[in-house]
């Protein structure tokens, strides 16, 4: 089994789906000949031809609308939005159209598209190349929202997303593209290399949507995380010495409450971690759900460690990023409570 980076795993998922299903098309800004600014589609145009993998005009709403129309025809388009920060022009097509088409047509027309987009900070991208807009999509009924944290999951989840008959927003933690990143930006960059999570089969396999993974069992407190923050959480646990159970949500809509509830009922404590701005973030929903489901088991309030309620600042990015120290501090606090 080859070791793949997250970029390679995503590329491989697209490759598998392009080869298995002639109705799969891949398009977006710079994804064709060039293979995407993060190179996730590299080589695919060469292999499948320019009618299946192609560049688009710079119009995110146009890209999504095209995909909705193709989906209604019967294709299974996979589009790339170059940065999640640039998905907003497509909001209306996603919320009012892709998400509602099945419902409003009584099930006759559907939009089985997948929208891939890199999100999150840690690359000095400033406020327009670092955002985490997942909460907006999680609020929209009719959309599924998926966020992998490692190459294996990325490929398996992406295949599931493409095969899913509903529209899926697939957020790729760009800081994890080339290696796991635990928030210690001052330490040497690690490649995916022989990380076990980078052992990715060549062929077709699925990681099911809607299922979280317990990536570290623990007894004292439950950490809910996704994407880059899974690695940060694991680092914080190591460093704090607190026996936390770390759950990688993988899909945030629909969220796997069974796994979450079982864990929090066991630990009695919960910390939610995400990179997005705090207020109105998905962490609020998680905290609400957890206290609804586990109130009588909770020994402390559910805490949130998140990005601040400011734009993501370029030079101060490491003061913004909710790194292991902040997560560890929250763990310590929640254990005191």
């Amino acid at each position: 089994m080859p070791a793949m980076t997250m970029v390679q795993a995503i590329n491989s998922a697209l490759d598998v789906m392009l080869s298995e299903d002639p109705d799969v098309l891949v398009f977006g800004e710079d994804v064709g000949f060039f293979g995407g600014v993060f190179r996730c589609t590299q080589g695919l145009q060469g292999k499948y031809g320019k009618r299946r993998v192609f560049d688009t005009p710079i119009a995110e709403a146009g890209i999504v609308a095209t995909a909705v129309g193709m989906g209604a025809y019967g294709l299974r388009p996979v589009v790339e939005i170059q940065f999640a920060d640039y998905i907003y022009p497509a909001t209306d097509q996603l919320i009012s159209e892709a998400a509602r088409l099945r419902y409003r047509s009584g099930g006759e027309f559907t939009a089985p598209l997948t929208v891939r987009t890199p999100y999150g900070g840690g690359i000095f991208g400033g406020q327009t190349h670092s955002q985490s807009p997942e909460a907006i999509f999680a609020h929209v009924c009719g959309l599924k929202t998926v966020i992998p944290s490692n190459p294996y999951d990325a490929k398996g989840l992406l295949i599931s997303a493409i095969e899913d008959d509903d529209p899926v927003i697939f957020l790729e933690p760009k800081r994890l593209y080339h290696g796991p990143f635990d928030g210690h930006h001052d330490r040497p960059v690690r490649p995916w290399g022989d990380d076990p999570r980078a052992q990715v089969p060549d062929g077709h396999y699925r990681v099911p949507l809607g299922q979280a993974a317990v990536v570290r069992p623990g007894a004292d407190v439950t950490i809910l995380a996704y994407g880059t923050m899974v690695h940060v959480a694991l680092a914080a646990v190591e460093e704090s010495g607190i026996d936390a159970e770390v759950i990688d949500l993988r899909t945030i809509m629909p969220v796997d409450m069974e796994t979450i509830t079982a864990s929090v009922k066991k630990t009695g404590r919960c910390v939610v971690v995400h990179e997005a701005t705090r207020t109105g973030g998905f962490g609020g929903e998680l905290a609400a759900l957890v206290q609804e489901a586990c109130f009588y088991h909770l020994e402390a309030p559910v805490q949130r460690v998140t990005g601040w309620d400011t734009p993501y600042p370029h030079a101060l990015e490491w003061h913004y990023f909710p790194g292991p120290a902040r997560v560890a501090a929250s763990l310590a606090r929640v254990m005191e409570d």
Partner: protein
Amino acid sequence: MTDAPRNLPRLALYIPEPARRPGDAPDFSGLAIPEPGALPRPDIDAPAEATRELAYGLIRVLDGDGRAVGPWDPRLDPQTLRRGLRAMVLTRAYDERMVRAQRQGKTSFYMKCTGEEAVAVAQALALNREDMCFPTYRQQGLLVARDWPLADMMCQVYSNAGDRLKGRQMPVFYSSKEAGFFSISGNLGTQYSQAVGWAMASAYKGDDRIAAAWVGDGATAEGDFHHALTFASVYRAPVVLNVVNNQWAISSFQGIAGGEATTFAARGLGFGMPALRVDGNDFLAVYAATRWAADRARTNGGPTLIELFTYRASAHSTSDDPSKYRPAGEESLWPLGDPIDRLRDHLVAIGEWSAERHAALEEEMREEVRRAGQEAEALGTLGTGPAHSPATMFDDVFKEMPWHLRRQRQELGV
């Protein structure tokens, strides 16, 4: 930085204003109406530039005496013409009945297409039955011309047990895959760029079906219009892009949409796309222009933009009262007349129709609507009689219902 002289008049903000408002006498004498038959008809493989004068002029076929003149005469047989007339009369009868039903409280809302029947009906006939239409709420004529059951449409308007959309959508937001009629969105313009995607998919599959899309003059201002034109032009999508310029967008005249400086058809030329501006109340001209664009698209000639120049003779919807913003009676003075009258007169002029047959047709169509109404009302009207169960509210959000929706359905106790 070599600064311009400052002894200029000050800048001033310009706000467009229609020539006439309530209280003014309606008057269209300022509107230049080109002669029928005057414009050339390029071959369907002509370059886009060949349509330049067609984008600024007005393609017209029917003259004042009910004769078909000029190169755009589609030379339809009388049977097809009568079929078109029938569909237009039926559409109007349907509209009238449904507005009455709304006034009677049988539904919440309705939208007529009075005065614009030729647009959808002639276009439906000029397209193939399998071509996919991405309409707005004012192209019910497409369904009627494709012989879609009126009762089925009414069930949607009544949100009753027979409503294929399960009471979810506002009245007139029809959807029927079988009829090649894409689900109408409440959000203006969104379907326009989707149609281009559908057409690209059809081209990708080597299919022979094309797409057609409609947008109002007002909604051309939405970004989706731009995206549709861009993508259609870049990928030469097989799509007919229609702008129904009925002069009004609720209370805003077409100058607010950018209709003062040039025509809406000109937008197409801006993308190197052939563009046709058509008398939208002239059944033959609408048919001919649509057929030109459809044939072009079907032969891999790419998209065409068609501006259908018409007039919204009725209120925007049952929630609207146009006497608040335009002169009363304006609709009866529209210089391009009424599309039904004009096709009727043409059929009479060529000896294929008569006043008596027309009166009989009108009665027959009213009767057809009445019958359909009875059929539909037996399945309920809004808030009265059979309807879809509340439990269905949770279906079709996703293909398979996730746990949280199952739980919410339980919570509702249905």
